[in-house]
């Protein structure tokens, strides 16, 4: 048996209110490619952040042994010194700098006060050759595609003398040919003795390169599979990823009669606002009825938020095309105002960034999307505003000393309720809820589910985007599955299971690679 290069023992990491990692164990042998799989929120990235020192020693429990030594990394620099280099999913390159400058950022060649540019570019070119990138190191990052940028990241890691390379979803934004090239590169490195940990959702890629697979679920290690001794099948991995019990975490909904179609989207296409050749939403069609909760499931980056925001008054993307039909009539929504006037509401997944004004009181946030209802001729009726805020506070059971309280002082769950109140006060018929329970505790989740039930009981339509499978299964009447910008499946409540949804997602990725 080969030497164990890395051993993470009983790692436990808690964030306020959540246990992100619970006694996680990971053993990586020298010279292997080790895959880490799990749902969103299973703890993969947290684990890698613990390893690389982003969460410093002392902020977690458990031990890390690397090369036989116990490690106490205080910052990223410490782990990089040992040769552990992490490449994040979102590329961290500066667009207006050259490849060479990016590769040696924070690791500059030459003396402190005099960068040796010849050495920088000379060495950078060598590493670019190693990763097989046919570009001069003097090219600006903005002028090369995402695939090549990923290679630059790897070259950058090599330039730091990496011994253990950690790749967080390295092929997420690459096309087939680029993905294949990248995986082959990893295999080549493996032959040369490099050890890698790869986080991925794509089972075909994993079976192509990985020697071992560790499955994480809800912050715990489920099992580690070895290519040589275990039989690795998709079903086994999926079961490991999602096989949790569904307890009674959802309030009962009264019998709701599902009515006519309220919103129909046909052949919807959206391109990235900056990289306008990147298609973020690809020919998507779906519909929702009155009194229905439709779930849109998928992994992060599947294009669900982009789909929702582009529908909501073109708040995202460029070159948007397709048909939007509300209550049987085709509409063109050019601004958020148009969308609101057509009784549409979008409750963002990012309540702090896109949803609430944290420095303003609850009452101001509650009325912001529908100021006309609390003002006449541009003059605010403050009494009425206060009244409205109190009404919704009571209705949603928001816990706060008063509606004069700044939203920034509330807990996540109560902030989410204020955000919901704001959009309920806009009196929509169709609500798009994007990750409505992200980052809030179980009790508040239950209450939010209750609110969703109430909304559909009133005959409204709810589109719920969620990465949490139990939530999707527990709440939806019908489920769409989205992956890589496309709708890849539709399931009824009766036929949907965690396994069936996950296999739709994973298989659609496989298909794409094989095509």
């Amino acid at each position, binding site marked *: 048996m080969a030497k164990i290069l890395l051993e993470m023992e009983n790692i436990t990491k808690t964030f306020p209110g959540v246990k992100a990692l619970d006694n996680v164990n990971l053993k990586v042998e020298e010279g292997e490619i080790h895959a880490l799989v799990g749902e969103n929120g299973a703890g993969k990235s947290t684990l890698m952040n613990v390893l690389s020192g982003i969460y410093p020693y002392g902020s977690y429990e458990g031990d890390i042994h690397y090369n036989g030594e116990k490690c106490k990394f205080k910052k990223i620099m410490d782990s990089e010194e040992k040769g552990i280099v992490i490449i994040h999913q979102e590329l961290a390159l500066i667009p207006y700098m050259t490849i060479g400058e990016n590769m040696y950022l924070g690791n500059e060649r030459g003396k402190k006060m005099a960068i040796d540019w010849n050495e920088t570019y000379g060495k950078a070119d060598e590493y670019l050759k190693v990763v097989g990138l046919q570009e001069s190191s003097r090219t600006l990052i903005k002028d090369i595609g995402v695939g090549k940028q990923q290679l630059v990241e790897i070259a950058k890691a090599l330039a730091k003398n990496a011994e253990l390379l950690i790749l967080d979803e390295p092929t997420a934004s690459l096309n087939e040919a680029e993905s294949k090239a990248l995986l082959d590169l990893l295999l080549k490195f493996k032959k040369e003795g490099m050890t890698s940990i790869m986080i991925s959702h794509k089972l075909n890629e994993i079976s192509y390169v990985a020697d071992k697979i560790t499955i994480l679920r809800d912050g715990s290690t489920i099992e580690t599979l070895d290519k040589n001794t275990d039989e690795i099948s998709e079903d086994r991995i999926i079961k490991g990823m999602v096989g949790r019990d569904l307890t009674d975490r959802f309030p009962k909904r009264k019998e709701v009669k599902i009515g006519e179609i309220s919103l129909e989207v046909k052949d919807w296409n959206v391109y990235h606002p900056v990289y306008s050749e990147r298609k973020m939403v690809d020919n998507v069609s779906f519909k929702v009825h009155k009194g229905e909760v439709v779930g849109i499931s998928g992994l992060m980056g599947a294009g669900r938020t982009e789909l929702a925001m582009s529908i909501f008054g073109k708040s995202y993307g460029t070159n948007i095309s397709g048909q939007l039909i509300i209550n049987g009539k085709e509409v063109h929504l050019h601004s958020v105002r148009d969308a609101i006037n057509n009784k549409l509401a979008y409750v963002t997944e990012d309540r702090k960034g896109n949803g609430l004004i944290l420095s303003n009181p609850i009452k101001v946030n509650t009325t912001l999307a529908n100021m006309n209802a609390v003002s006449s001729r541009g003059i*605010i009726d403050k009494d009425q505003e206060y009244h409205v805020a109190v009404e919704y506070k009571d209705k949603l059971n928001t816990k706060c000393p008063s509606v004069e309280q700044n939203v920034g002082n509330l807990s996540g769950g109560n902030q989410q309720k204020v955000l919901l109140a704001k959009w309920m006060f806009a009196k929509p018929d169709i609500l798009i809820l994007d990750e409505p329970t992200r980052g809030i505790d179980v009790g508040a989740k239950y209450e939010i589910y209750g609110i969703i039930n109430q909304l559909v009981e009133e005959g409204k339509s709810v589109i719920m985007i969620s990465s949490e499978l139990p939530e999707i299964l527990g709440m939806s009447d019908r489920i769409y599955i989205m992956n890589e910008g496309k709708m890849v499946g539709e399931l009824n409540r009766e036929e949907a299971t965690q396994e069936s949804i996950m296999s739709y997602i994973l298989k659609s990725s496989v298909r794409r690679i094989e095509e």
Partner: protein
Amino acid sequence: MNKAKVSNIVGKYTMILALVIVTLFFTWATDGKMLLPQNVNNLIAQNAYVFILATGMLLCILTGGNIDLSVGSIICFVGAIGGKFLVSNNMNPIPAILIMLVVGLVIGAWQGFWIAYVRIPPFIVTLAGMLIFRGLSNVILNGQTIAPMPDNYLALFNNYVPDIIGSGSFNLTCMLAGVLACIVYIFIQARSRTNKIKKGYETESLGGMIVKMTVICAVVLAMSIRLSQYKGIPNVLIWVAVVVVIYAYITSKTTIGRYFYAVGGNEKATKLSGINTNRVYFIAYANMGFLSAVAALVTIARLNSANPTAGNSYEMDAIGSCFIGGASAYGGIGTVPGVIVGATLMGVINLGMNIMGVDANYQKVVKGGVLLAAVIFDVVSKRKKS
């Protein structure tokens, strides 16, 4: 009252306390000259432009800590145009004033367009405006001063409200106006409080409210007495009061006022709430141009001339007043009354140092220090809270 409550009140009224302390200090340092009737009058006349500009600047700062550097140059340019019409063309003051206001608004709209719809950073646009309009003023004036202004124009700003009831040395009209202002103020406050209590809304503590009202009324009455002992209400005070009252109303009671705070608090969230954020930026800067023109009216009257250096570094007085008055450098926080307190504080420091005969260069050092201290205090006290 417990400790937390006291510190809360101190935190809320820090700048008012600072103003009181600074005023007392200068009164002591100048052997009471600071509060002589004539000096109280000067405080208003000298700082009228700061009050007007600072209210406009507040709107710009609210949108996200953005400032307008061009206001001093716009004052000079609008003043130059006014001077041309009033003096060289002998135009009647009323149409001349209207022309000046329209010119200010157009300049504001020009800058607002680039900032709001093309998204050029405000710093750049207004820096360009600062250069452009300073240069154009010189072109219009040929580098010379136009003076004097016609009497009928000066009368609108530099005269005093005639004393119709009183006689002799004490201006009874002025005193009565002060008393009336206090009565109206107390009445409005009391009515809104009883209204709130009737409907069961949250109210501030009665004690705090009485203290606040007493302080404000005392200041207003004291000023009325001093002004009455001089020549009464200066006309320019009416101009300032009208501007301040209108903008205090807009920022606190109207939807558009609310949007300034919302954009500064979180622009993305505001946009996703269906509010046209571009228009909010446009209005802030168009309005700043307009108020610069109002300040220009006051300035050429006070200088009794239109000259190529008028309005120099006025933008800094306005920006300083806003930050001293509690506006956040990141936007979304700040009130008109706060800004008025800030402007008054700056004015008191200016006047006090002038009376003491402090060297002009040291005056700048002191003002800079006060500005820095005020913002540091603001940032640090907020950090402690969170």
